[in-house]
């Protein structure tokens, strides 16, 4: 799973030669064999490294402040979203929904790595939502739809229809 995310990210970053990954432990934590140094372990660590390699550091945030915010949501992604239970899902969606109320992106006013990895991680949750639930978490849904239509981001994931077709709403013919 994490490996597909990394390969999608590589494509988004337009990295020329794809890296070789392996995994370690029960939780299949991704490992990147690094030519010049020790291997890198962990989804966030490797993703940050790829962004730097592609010289797209604006994806990690433009200022100290936004770098910290990006870090925070990346951590949220791997600690809260990975292996979450049913009850956790509700909490997560509620929190994100509230947070995204007045925002288009997780950090700053532009796309960051936090948005990309959060999108990859939350996609399986959104797929399972009923129409009513998607409406309940309308800010998450809006952000999610934005992400999947953002040029070059979606990659390995199938598109999810997130908004109800409005043609027939409210009227019974």
């Amino acid at each position, binding site marked *: 799973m994490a490996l597909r995310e990394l390969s999608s990210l590589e494509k988004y970053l337009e990295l020329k030669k794809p890296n070789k990954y392996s995994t370690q432990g029960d*939780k299949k*934590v991704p490992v990147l064999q690094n030519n010049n140094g*020790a291997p*890198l*372990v*962990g*989804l*966030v*660590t490797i993703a*940050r*490294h790829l962004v*730097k390699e592609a010289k797209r550091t604006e994806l990690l945030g433009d200022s*100290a*402040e936004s*770098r*910290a*915010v990006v*870090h*925070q949501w990346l*951590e*949220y992604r*791997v*600690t809260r979203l*990975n292996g979450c239970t049913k009850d*956790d899902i509700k*909490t997560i969606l*509620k*929190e994100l929904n*509230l*947070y995204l*109320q007045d925002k288009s992106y997780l950090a700053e006013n532009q796309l960051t790595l936090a948005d990309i990895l959060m999108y990859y991680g939350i996609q399986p949750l959104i797929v399972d939502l009923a129409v009513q639930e998607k409406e309940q978490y309308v800010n998450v849904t809006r952000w999610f739809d934005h992400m999947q239509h953002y040029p070059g981001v979606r990659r390995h994931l199938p598109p999810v229809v997130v908004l109800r077709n409005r043609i027939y709403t409210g009227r019974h013919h």
Partner: protein
Amino acid sequence: MKLFVSEGNPHCLKVLAALEVTGAPCDVQYVNHDETVVPFLSRPTLPALLLPSGLHLFSPNAICQYLFEVKGQESSDLCSQWLEWEATDLQPALLQALHMAVLQGKASNLPKFLQGPLNYLDQGLSKRDTTYLTGEAVSLADVVLWAALYPVLSEPSLALGKQTTPHVSKVQFPSHDIKQMLPFRVMCSECVLAVCYMNVVAFRSPQILFLGLIEIHLCVCSLSLPQEGKRNILLTSALPYVNNVPHLGNIIGCVLSADVFSRYGRLRGWNLLFVCGTDEYGTATENKAREEGLTPQQICDKYHAVHACIYEWFQIDFDFFGRTTTEKQTEIAQNIFWRLHKHGFLVEDTVEQLRCESCQRFLADRFVEGTCPHCSYPEARGDQCDKCGRLINAVELREPQCKVCRQTPVVRSSKHLFLDLPKLEPQLEQWLDRSTSTGDWTANAKQITRSWLRDGLKPRCITRDLKWGTPVPHPDFKEKVFYVWFDAPIGYLSITANYTDQWEKWWKNPSQVELYNFMAKDNVPFHSVVFPCSLLGAQDNYTLVSHLVATEYLNYEDTKFSKSRGVGVFGDMAKDTGIPSDVWRFYLLYVRPEGQDSAFSWADMATKNNSELLNNLGNFINRAGMFVTKFFEGCVPPMELQQEDKKLLALVSWELQQYIQLMDKVKIRDALKHILNISRHGNQYIQVNEPWKKIKGGDAERQRAGTVTGVSVNIACLLSGMLLPYMPTVSQTIRDQLNAPQSCHNAMFEGTGTFVCTLRAGHRIGTVSPLFQKLEVDQIEALKKRFGGQQVFDVYDVAMVNAVDPEKAKQLTQAVTEQGEKVRALKAQKAEKAVVTAEVAKLLDLKKQLAAAEGKNTEPAPQKNKKK
């Protein structure tokens, strides 16, 4: 920029440390730990940093990263990797470890959860060979990891291996002053753990939050040592022998009974320490090791884990479950030995001993069999005859045989040390008079002890010619080890010593500490005579047993559980039945052999589950809760007590007082009946008052329905407390369903017991659902078939039983027929019950011998089949 932190929160330690190290300019504000600072998070989360832009950071690691970056230190890939590992691997492990330490009081189990992450960290440090995690200077990663580990590494009693993780323990504190500014400087280290745990879980499960700080402080800190002015109880359960898988009889006989009493004692507010462990030295282990091609230590490790696992499933809540093969054991046993030696209570003698020339070794008592010199029972063991119960000296056996190779052993002599029991007898008797008259000794314990004294004490050998044991420190006996009966009870002391360095406050403190020993009756003499003699002779102010609680035997269906013969249902199979641990506990305690032998029966277990748990107890509690939910929108209605209600409350109070009186005297089975009486009264009360009809009536009737419902649901709350020692999970479930506060029982179990209203009018209860499930006849029949009715033999005995003896079988068949006719005749004549019972017992015994002679019952032991 403003940093919000709360007292005693270890995540706040991280950010405060980062602030100290970086010197970043920032206001710090202390707020309550349940204050909401970050608006979009569902739960109060601290620390939190309000950024100049108005955004909040709520991740401690992100805050630390920000503080470092403000001061111009950007984080490297390696640093980011440590931070990610800390968040995804270390924190969950800490959470689990702290859960054990705080909620279950098992600080000693911390290493189990933390060893993995600590090793990983240690490897990381050793690979790079730098002073700090990412180089020669303190980095973000050092601060974060140090602060995360501080609560556990700063706790000396946890002994989180300085030896095993040398590099971790060398990591320096970011600042030596930091301890001074720690937010939890006012609390003891256990409380740091508790608070730490609370904050970690607060993020995930808010219900933990209501465990107030003070409550945790009191309950965690009162665990470990005796306290002035409190009732201090040291509780031991007989140490199970390591290489047997314990069967239901063992479980009810010691660990389960002791667990019920321990939970009850805590409910009563006593200061209590409950220790147990596996008894690991001796020939049986050596032999098992030889069989399985392992070292004795490996055998012990393997089976110790099996034991621990079984007791965990049965929810046996030891403060510490240790083992006898430790350095402390050697130290304490040798100290007691030298003191006995110094005071002249050891005598030397040459012993005639059986040696098997074909096996090339001296035979331990249990590896010799022969004919009993007292009653001529042909299968007497070398130490004791199963038939007449007398102790035997192995060389006295007639026609002895080596149990392993069936050769006849020869008699050899060897020099040994003896504990001079006759010399200690006057002291012993004086102490026994006092202890048995003031303490709660069970009748069988007193009687067995008396009969031992009446028969006269003889010197007892304390050394053996073995290797797997505690070495005898005396130079003249250096090839020998202590005999297990001398060594094993010292395990109680050494296990406590492994739990706390201040073990002597428990074990050398007879004026403040009351010692309870739980065991089955076969263990009584060692605890009432032999071990007290060792301790009295050592003259070191040891705490001797005040209350000796011995059960009789639990039989299995119509036959016998036996440790050495391996007959019965074993602990590890219980969980494969799909019957919940609480129901097993309930039934075993319901038939606890208290005062007389009793029997486990599958059919009876199903009956008791269906009639008592399901129809009586569960039904009452469920109805009480359902009425509140259905008729009063989940809120306890106001109550106006009438004569009838007061009568019920009086009845319930009386049952509660009986329960407390009996439990104080460790009458565990009898006390259980009073719980069931209360729910019976409750069911009747509901049945007579019919709140489901009254709720549809006029105002007065509706009011009446409210009172009945309110009273019932309060009784249900009381029941959850009374059930706690017996069925801890069910008790917790009831409290959850009623949304009753954790401390709701405290007042009710003080003194002689008072039933008070804890769920007042307006209290909102939780979601009510059924507590028990019916055990169906076919399900129970299938279990009965699967597990027995037939006997189960362990590996040792299969060889022995396989020795089919057709000649003997023929004689026995004849004997069984004759005995059967005799019984039928007696019954027909309506003879005295005692006479009939005696003859039936003979008949059963004969049938058993016949089965053995025919080589029946040699099906593979079910513990091997369980994975089918």
